[in-house]
């Protein structure tokens, strides 16, 4: 099931909220949320519910055992078991085919290529459970004894299939005690409606245009078409993923949880490093805390650490060399920025912003084309294609100019530019929030009816 489906908005969600708040007993609320989360997951992938349940139960037990045998070799054994089993699952389901292809390139393998569908959300929930056992092992959090609460932490439907990656320590206190707060629920509704609007109104619409330029016969692609196409894809990707994160954060608030932000106006970044402090923040933090810092961080072999982190970040996004290349691309620019810091510091902010945008937009091509042949062909047209405007491009821009202008406006970090504005607008928010929510929900519903183009891009990770 996806958030941006009518069945979710008008069926699943209100029913879940209604039953959730039908009782004041936290244990029953947690159980309700757990059951709805499993229903949510099973909607499209009933079989893989078993994998989710296994991962949850396994690490629930590991957490308890690590706590019980803290300080002994057994605790380390259970931690290693957790890491091996979780990443083993990830490797088998996500990277099995990729590994096979690469080994089979050199030697003939005696068995056929494993053809397994990627269970939705596996990249997210395995990271969550591993982070939990690691944190328990490091004694940064207590092992959760309440089975239902732990199962709910792993499977909570707002963040189950496409993040944000929720660290256990961020919600530990909220698992068993959540205050009922009208303002929080209402702010969750607002955030959900805004995320839905971003997804349906902007991401879906730009996505329909992206296909026109990037899925077309590449030989017909002119250079401006290629640039417009990949820029539109950058817009689509941001509004799709950040829209999903907004919905996740909003939904979590409706049930009393406060999740961390996953995006902070990334297209306002002034360097690649700055960009990744603003984009998919929960993933960046995971790699920082569990890979980069344990490897030595900036104290020991920083260049190597940066490359390792970025290669892994690339691989996390997909089992394909183009994703590794995409990760290393950013690793290289991270290093360039690190060594040219004195120059960058003197560069005007506007220039740095343009430089970052060009790098980011260009990197989307590596993200878009999994096939290297297609990617090379695309680059050829991007840089050496005809400089002509294609017949429909100008018209497409005319026909979507307000939409694109709105997308650009929403990329601007108004809260950073006018830090006191939020407080000053608070009285108006009180009156405007209801019409705004109604308008956003209505427009999104209207666009969802009869529209078949509705994928979430990050579902495939």
């Amino acid at each position: 099931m996806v958030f941006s489906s009518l069945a979710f908005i008008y069926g699943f969600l209100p029913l879940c909220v209604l039953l959730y708040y039908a009782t004041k007993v936290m244990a029953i609320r947690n159980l309700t949320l757990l059951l709805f989360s499993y229903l949510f997951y099973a909607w499209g992938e009933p079989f893989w519910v078993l994998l989710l349940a296994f991962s949850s139960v396994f690490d629930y037990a590991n957490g308890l055992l690590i706590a019980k045998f803290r300080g002994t070799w057994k605790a380390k054994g259970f931690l290693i078991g957790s890491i091996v089993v979780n990443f083993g699952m990830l490797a088998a389901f996500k990277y099995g085919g990729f590994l096979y292809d690469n080994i089979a390139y050199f030697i003939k393998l005696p068995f056929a290529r494993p053809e397994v569908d990627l269970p939705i959300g596996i990249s997210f929930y395995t990271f969550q459970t591993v982070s939990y056992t690691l944190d328990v092992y490091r004694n940064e959090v207590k092992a959760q004894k309440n089975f239902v609460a732990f199962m709910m932490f792993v499977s909570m439907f707002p963040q189950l299939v496409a993040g944000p990656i929720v660290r256990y320590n961020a919600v530990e206190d909220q698992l068993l005690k959540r205050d009922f707060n009208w303002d929080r629920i209402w702010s969750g509704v607002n955030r959900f409606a805004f995320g839905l609007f971003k997804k349906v109104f902007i991401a879906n619409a730009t996505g329909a245009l992206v296909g026109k330029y990037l899925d077309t016969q590449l030989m017909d692609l002119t250079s401006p078409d290629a640039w417009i196409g990949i820029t539109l894809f950058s817009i689509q990707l941001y509004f799709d993923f950040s829209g999903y994160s907004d919905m996740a954060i909003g939904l979590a608030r409706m049930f009393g949880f406060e999740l961390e932000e996953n995006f902070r106006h990334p297209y306002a970044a002034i360097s690649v490093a700055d960009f990744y402090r603003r984009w998919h923040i929960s993933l960046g933090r995971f790699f920082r805390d569990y890979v980069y810092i344990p490897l030595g961080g900036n104290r020991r072999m920083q260049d190597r650490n940066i490359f390792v982190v970025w290669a892994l970040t690339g691989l996390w996004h997909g089992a394909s060399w183009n994703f590794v290349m995409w990760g290393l691309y950013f690793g290289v620019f991270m290093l360039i920025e690190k060594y040219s810091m004195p120059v960058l510091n003197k560069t005007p902010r506007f220039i740095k912003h343009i430089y970052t945008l060009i790098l980011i937009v260009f990197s989307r091509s590596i993200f878009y084309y999994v096939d290297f042949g297609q990617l090379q062909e695309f680059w050829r047209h991007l840089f050496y294609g005809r400089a002509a405007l294609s017949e429909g491009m100008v018209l497409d821009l005319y026909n979507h100019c307000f939409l694109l202008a709105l997308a650009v406006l929403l990329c601007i970090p108004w809260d950073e530019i006018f830090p006191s504005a939020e407080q000053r607008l608070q009285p108006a928010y009180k009156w405007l929030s209801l019409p705004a929510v109604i308008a956003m929900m209505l427009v999104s519903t209207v666009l969802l009816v009869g529209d078949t183009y509705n994928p979430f891009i990050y579902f495939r990770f």
Partner: protein
Amino acid sequence: MKASKLYTPLVFLALLAVPIAMLIGEKQSISMDEKRKLAEWPSFSWEDWTSGAYGAAIDDYFDDHLPVREVVMHWADGVKYAWGVHPVVAERKVVVKPAKREPLDTSKAGSDSARMNYLNDFDESYSGEMLIIDGAVYTQNSGNPAMSPSFAKMLNEYAEKLKGHTRVFSCVAPLSSAFIPVEKYGHLRQRNKSTLEAIRDNLQGPIFCDVMGEMLLKQNQKLFFGTDHHWTARGAYCGYVSFCKAAGFAPVKLEQMTRKVKTGFLGSLYSLTRDATVREHADTFEYFKPRIEASAVRFSESSLDRPMKSAVFCESFRGSACYMTFICGDAPLIKITTGVKNGRKAAVVKNSMGNAFSVYLISHYEEIWVFDYRYSKHVMLDIIYDREIDDLIFALGMYGAMSNGTIHMMRKLGEGGVGMRPRRTESDSIQSDSLIPAPSQIPAAPNDSVIPLVPDVIDKIENDSNGE
């Protein structure tokens, strides 16, 4: 009172009101706008659940049964229009997405589905890029001269079999691409022409109707709809005139018929493009009724035993269904009986383009048998011999003459047809919950009596058919 305390329950009540309205509201099974069957509430099976099909089917149900869905879809067009400015551009291209989900089930004779199926043959061959010029949609399909010999060969075979008994006519209509009012698309016109000429040049026995030649004489008139892939009544009249010339009849002038008009016709091409400028240029649906008494019955796909009452003109169809005014839409076989007591009989082999053509024939024949080669499994040659048919007329849009599949269907029609869909068993029909009962559900009537199709539809038909 806190605003949030008021707003939050309000919003959730509004969300809950939607499924409640879906539960108690009137159920629709067909989308007239999209010309497709709407999703039904799935019956649960463990197999569907484990495959994810059950959940997907519920998603589809929600998508298809949102209250006031068709109104909301029009709002969606308005929202999309508001995305930008729309400079006056005489010409542009749009890409049409593949049709959504289940198309109409055309296998049930007499069902609403069968009446609305005219999109199907078109849909399969025309999705892709379309031109919008001055608010009218044109496909860029323009025929295929390479297929013409095959089509002509099939007609020649019929002419050979029916030699001395029945005349065979080829009345193939060009596509709208032949009449794009922009010079640079002249090659599309030429290709239409070449396709038809190649048919003519390969005919040995059948008589060729120069439909395109007649249409070119009247190209200042509106011969094709701008929002639908069919020809207009005037376009079909050109086809009729060309047939009369070929057959040696004097065509009835349009002025001698009763002119009627419906407004606001948004047809198949609008459904496919859902383009706001096209919607602004909704067609006026004009049609001409010969002043001849005529009645019609339709048959199921393979049996003549259970005729169902129909009409030559179903005038109650409006909006996106206007084109079904002609012979009430497609059916495997329709028999028209007229007040022209001249003993002449005709058989028409057609796709949906032939619907608008067939109605003009009532001025010349006492009996007209209209076969839809896509759905009929009747043994056409038996009927031609049994009923002493004088003329066999292949009256169809060119897309029917451009593929081996459709030519094969027409060839097989002589001995029983293939139909587009597998033959259904009686139990299949009973289990289906189409709006209109399957023929097997209708009680048998004695002898040749006519069985009503379904009360509300037949009421409309009878009201519409006064005086025919």
